């Protein structure tokens, strides 16, 4: 802190006070009223800074600056010598001593804040976007929600824990809302924000407002994890520009960005533009290409004092190569960078699985200050475009996966006739030396099939894309009014309309001139029964074709009360959600239930929450929050097999969430600490998964009355009425031990478990629907990131504008995602309904024990420096993650292939498991370098 001098001892205070007042302050005398007000500007530009928190130290009195950087305390400020603390994220806090005299107005103008280089540059890293959006990791990352937080716990969770897929309170990102200018960006499909839709726009997305947990947001009711609103109003940006170049080996290898903001121009106009590109042939994982462009433009017209209109467009087309989860056998033969999705073609690494996101956002925002106390903000958002995930289909060829289980040594070693060591050795050498997709064989197969001599044949392989083309319109109005200085009321209404077009599309015939057959090669079913045996070409739809239509109408209202000793709030919401599937193709396996519109589903959700902060003293606070929410299940968890039919999860109902937390907060000039206990219970949720099951011994199909002996099938697994319980404690503590050294410590200790034994049934085109099983999941751990995480670290900040920091982070209690089917009676009952002859409960318990991954420690370093050259700034930032190159598993799942005791036992007894769990590993040592230039 540069102003620590001001507070060193009381004898200096007065002289400094006089000194300061000589420069900055004027004292006016009015009768009776004591007023403390002032303004804050940026050190260099002297631009006013809005949203600066101004507090009187040792009290709970605080106020924020307005758009002009001005503030005035509404409450009575204690008389006499006081210390004014001004702070804002991204700036170095300052402290000003003042003297408050009764009946006088103290107007402190021209207080300044300096941009905090370290904070600013932390923003610059922006958690590698691929982690945020990594659907191939199967893990969900909530860090994007938290990155703007000032709280040491949340910042650590965002920046230090993200590469371990740590989740705050074990909650997925659908429990948090991400808003841009007040418009919610979470997808109706899965409730999660699609981070790629605004990736690479770091410069213009700095202005974020975060409310965490159940705390009331000024924009919406929110989930139980919190709400982040990114403000992209053109008038809210400081005039100036920035050019950034970054280099990294995490996801992209290069990044270039440029942005410029006009500031407020004559005539009330302001604009901000930005363009950026991130690219690379390969990130940490092999062949994970990155190709992303980002464009942003926002223009605002301040019509008059009351009205302002802002138009924003965001366009961030991006393509990324995905990487595969692998069995331990594969990692052992290769390494943790191994990715089975690519192969060499013409001297280039070609990745077969590319995720492409291109969803432009257009929004129009109207801001109306009805009075100085009341405002109405109305927004229209329109988003369209596509998300595509490419993959190979092999209707007329062998499985192209180079890590196909039959190609690995474990398969030969588990030969029923005894281990075939010679073959295993050969397979091992092949995999070590190759182990990638053989594109040439694939092309050759299609070219061979083109030969008309004995009858041309459709392509054996094809590259196609699973497409989801969403068009969504969102309209909302947010009303804010200060009823008096103690009561703030917010209310809002929102309407959303979604048309989601889902289909497969052929993107490359891979050399075939004959085309590709639109028929299920596995069991011969027609995908499009109205056009049987159709041959499809590039650009044609393939495999499935349906729309999901959804309407959401919601409203909320809340009141916040602020008093000297206690702040509290109450909030309520109601939401109506409808979903309807409209099948455009008739799937032959589901005649009568695939073509045309299905049932229109209607869900009503309500939310109620409240909380209070009790200020024991300015140093000690107690904060309590509690809420109860019912909500529609996401589209993903509503339809059991939306690609093929209109079936919905049987007996579907709203999910119910109960959540609460209690915190003790300690604040002193040196130490800030917060200890929180939390509890959340999620009930009546559904989980749908798809996999190839082997060992379905005890399937009794209810429809048709036909006995079947299917033991293997591609199935949809519906787990319904799942309850989960999350509870634990969080601790965040930071201490400014010297003016230059800050110590940080964070701990999160939780237990996230299944809390009931939900029902389970399977559906399949082969056998229809099974009977309903009970899956004995109670007390199994919920997978997804470590349930315990700890961090200790320090920051050194030199007055000469350079700094560095280091943290050591410890993770434990990370669990594999268990297969629910293996926890049903299908596991131990033979087809005659009796337990397997060799069934041994002790052995079964051993087989079904949930795998816990090893504990690990990751050390991260950061550092930076900035220079001022004339009117320009140059900033440099570097970070090294996982300095010690620790190898660790971040997640994994049990394969659904061995669905019964005998098969799992047999596989477990193999020298190497053929169908062992698949895992994701964290990255080894990686770096990130960043240089920026500001003007």
């Amino acid at each position, binding site marked *: 802190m540069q102003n620590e001098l001001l507070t060193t001892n009381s004898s200096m205070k007065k002289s400094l006070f006089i000194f300061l007042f000589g420069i900055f302050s004027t004292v006016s005398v009015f009768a009776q009223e004591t007023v403390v007000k002032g303004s804050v500007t940026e050190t260099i530009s002297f631009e006013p800074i809005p949203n600066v928190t101004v507090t009187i130290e040792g009290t709970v009195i605080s106020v924020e600056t307005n758009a002009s950087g001005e503030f005035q305390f509404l409450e009575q400020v204690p008389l006499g010598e006081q210390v004014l603390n001004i702070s804002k994220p991204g700036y170095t806090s300052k402290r000003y001593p003042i003297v408050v005299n009764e009946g006088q107005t103290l107007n402190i103008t021209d207080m300044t804040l300096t941009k905090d280089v370290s904070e600013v540059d932390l923003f610059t890293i922006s958690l590698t976007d691929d982690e945020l959006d990594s659907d191939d990791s199967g893990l969900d990352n909530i860090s994007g929600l938290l990155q703007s937080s000032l709280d040491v716990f949340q910042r650590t969770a965002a920046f230090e824990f993200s590469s371990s897929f740590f989740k705050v309170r074990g909650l997925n990102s659908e429990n948090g809302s991400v808003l841009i200018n007040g418009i919610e960006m979470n997808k109706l499909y899965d409730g999660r924000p699609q981070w790629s839709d605004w990736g690479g726009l770091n410069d213009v997305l700095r202005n974020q407002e975060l409310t965490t947990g159940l705390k009331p947001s000024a924009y919406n009711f929110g989930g139980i994890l919190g709400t982040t609103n990114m403000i992209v109003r053109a008038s809210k940006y400081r005039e100036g520009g920035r050019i950034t170049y970054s280099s990294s080996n995490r996801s992209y290898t290069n990044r270039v960005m440029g942005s410029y903001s006009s500031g407020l121009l004559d005539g009330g106009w302001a604009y901000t533009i930005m363009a950026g*590109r991130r690219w690379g042939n390969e990130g940490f994982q092999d062949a994970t290409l990155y190709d992303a462009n980002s464009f942003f433009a926002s223009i605002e017209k301040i019509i008059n004092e009351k009205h302002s209109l802002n138009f924003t467009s965001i366009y961030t087309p991006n393509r990324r190569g995905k990487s595969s989860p692998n069995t331990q056998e594969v990692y052992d033969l290769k390494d943790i960078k191994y990715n089975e999705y690519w192969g060499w073609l013409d001297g280039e690494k070609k990745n077969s699985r590319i995720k492409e996101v291109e969803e432009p956002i257009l929004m129009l925002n109207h801001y109306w200050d009805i009075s100085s106390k009341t405002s109405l903000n109305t927004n229209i958002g329109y988003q369209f475009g596509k998300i595509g995930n490419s993959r190979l289909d092999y209707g007329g060829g062998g499985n192209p996966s180079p890590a196909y289980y039959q190609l690995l040594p474990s398969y030969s070693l588990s030969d029923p006739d005894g281990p075939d060591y010679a073959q295993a050795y050969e397979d091992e050498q092949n995999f070590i030396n190759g182990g990638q997709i053989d594109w040439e064989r694939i092309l050759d197969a299609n070219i061979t099939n083109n030969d008309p001599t004995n009858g041309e044949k459709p392509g054996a392989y094809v590259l196609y894309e699973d497409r989801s083309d969403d068009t969504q319109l969102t309209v909302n109005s947010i009303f804010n009014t200060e009823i008096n200085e103690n009561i703030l009321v917010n209310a809002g209404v929102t309407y959303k309309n979604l048309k989601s077009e889902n289909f497969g599309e052929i993107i490359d015939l891979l050399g075939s001139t004959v085309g590709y057959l639109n028929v299920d090669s596995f069991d011969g079913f027609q995908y499009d029964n109205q056009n049987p045996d159709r041959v499809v070409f590039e650009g044609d739809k393939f495999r499935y074709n349906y729309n999901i239509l959804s309407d959401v109408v919601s409203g909320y209202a809340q009141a916040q009360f602020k008093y000297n000793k206690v702040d509290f709030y109450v909030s309520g919401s109601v939401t109506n959600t409808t979903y309807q599937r409209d099948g455009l193709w008739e799937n032959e396996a589901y005649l009568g239930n695939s073509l045309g519109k299905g049932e229109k589903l209607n869900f009503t959700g309500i939310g109620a929450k409240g909380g209070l902060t009790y200020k024991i003293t300015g140093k000690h606070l107690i904060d309590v929050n509690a809420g109860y929410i019912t909500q529609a299940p996401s589209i993903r968890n509503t339809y059991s097999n939306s690609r093929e039919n209109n079936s919905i999860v049987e007996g579907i109902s709203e999910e119910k969430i109960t959540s609460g937390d209690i915190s003790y907060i300690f604040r002193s000039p040196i130490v800030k600490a917060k200890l929180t206990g939390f509890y959340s219970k999620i009930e009546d949720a559904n989980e749908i998964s798809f996999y190839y099951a082997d060992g379905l011994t005890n399937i009794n199909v209810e429809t048709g009355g036909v006995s079947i002996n299917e033991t293997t099938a591609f199935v949809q697994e519906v787990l319904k009425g799942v309850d989960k319980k999350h509870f634990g404690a969080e601790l965040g503590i930071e201490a400014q031990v010297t003016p230059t050294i800050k110590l940080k410590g964070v701990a999160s200790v939780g237990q996230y478990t299944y809390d009931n034994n939900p029902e389970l049934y399977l559906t399949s085109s082969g056998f229809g629907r099974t009977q309903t099983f009970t899956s004995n999941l109670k007390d199994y751990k919920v997978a997804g990131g470590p349930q315990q995480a700890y961090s200790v670290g320090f920051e050194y900040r030199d007055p000469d504008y350079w700094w560095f920091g280091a943290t050591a982070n410890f993770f434990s209690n990370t669990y594999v995602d268990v297969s629910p089917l293996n926890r049903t009676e299908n596991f131990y009952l033979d087809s005659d309904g009796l337990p397997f002859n060799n069934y041994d409960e002790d052995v079964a318990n051993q087989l079904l024990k949930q795998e816990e991954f090893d504990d690990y420690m990751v050390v991260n370093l950061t550092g930076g420096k900035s220079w001022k050259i004339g009117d320009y700034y140059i900033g440099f930032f570097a970070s090294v993650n996982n300095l010690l190159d620790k190898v660790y598993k971040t997640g994994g799942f049990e394969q659904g292939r061995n669905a019964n005791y005998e098969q799992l036992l047999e596989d477990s007894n193999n020298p190497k498991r053929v169908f062992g769990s698949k895992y994701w590993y964290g990255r080894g040592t990686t770096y990130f370098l960043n240089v920026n230039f500001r003007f």
Partner: protein
Amino acid sequence: MKTTKFLKIALGLIVTFAMVSCVQDDDYTIPSSLGNEENTGLNNLLNQISTGTVELKTITEVRELAVQYEAISIESEIAVKGYVSSSDQTGNFYKEFFIQDDPSNPTATLKIVLNQVDTYNQFNQGREVYIYLKGLYIGETNTGDDVTTIGGKFDTFDNDILAITSNQLGNHVFRSTTTEEIEPVELNLSEISEFHIGMFVKLVDVQFPRSLSGLPYVDPTDDFDSQRMIESCAEDNEFMMESSSFANFSQMTIPTDGKGTISGIINKTYDGYDLVINLISTDDVIMDDPMRCDPFNIDDYTAVFTEDFNDAVDNTNLNLPGWTNFAEEGSELWTEQAFGGNGYAEFSSYLSGDAVNVGWLVSPGIDMDAQEGEYLFFRTAQHHLDSVDNTLEVYVSSDFDGSNVLSATWVPITTNLADINNDWYDFIDSDLIDVSGYTGTLHVAFKVSGSGTNTQLDGAYHVEDFNILIEN
């Protein structure tokens, strides 16, 4: 303005980067080098053949290396050439294909087993393939099954030949760029022999039995393979078709509403006991003649006229109402017979005393205008028949006046009749004889010629179940 200039530079830079910094595109153009490696392999082999380092053998010569029940390691520098005859496109073959020595007139074949699925998209039907044999094995995949096979390894326990591994494949099996049209060898069922194993053949004039009507190629209760009967029309012969439960046509319905041809590969059952045909595709089942050739099933027809002769009085001259019993030569007439409750008509010259007997049995008149689509059907039997000159003939007439047999115009009918080759007393079905072309009143006559004095000509004929039928 300085800032504007910076902005322009910045944006310019970004646009430039966007254009020049390309990453993997989504273009899958076929690289010009595709297949080079394989061509090099083939050219090396062809060079070695032309210089004499490697000797190119015929398939027949290679097959001579095989010794049944043994796995023979091929150690000499030899190679063989053939044309792929089979295809696993539909999944009816698994990790194997056959080659034959000529695309249209094959004389020998080999089975190739390899550790690869969907071989059809590499070793497509008709493809010219060279196999460098040194280091491979010749034998049988299930020893004793008579299917001579080239493989890459063998099982030391039972000498079974095992697949060519994917590593061996690239060093031993080479494709040329030639694909020839494979012309099937046309065969009647009786002609099929072990010689044809592995050849692409066309079975002619065949159909599936009516009993398979509505059934799929593979019985869902069979775990692996199903056998389905094929019948010959021209011959009294049957043959088995075997299909895998993994074939994609396994649940398709067998076509039973016609006859035609079935093409496929002749193979052996897994145990090696029986020859079977394996389809490559159901496109090769061409039942293009809607007229089946079934042995007749009376339940499918309604009788316009029927005579089962069950009112017969044993050993009396036949005098059923409407029937004409006439001796053209000699005095012997047709008689009524009953045996074990079954009645029939018989003509026998035995001990007639006449040197020549010619007896006519003429049916009552049938009104051919009262319905359409009439068939004639009856059964005949014989006993003591010694000579083909002791004949039974069948005629029809539409101008028989009911009494004067010899003045009517009799049109001979050729059909299946009991003859000297049949067992005594066995009733033989006639064909289903189409008589729908006749109008007016039709009579059917059975004429037997024999002798009571020549013991070579004194056999007897029976007629039974005389019917004029129309289809249901």
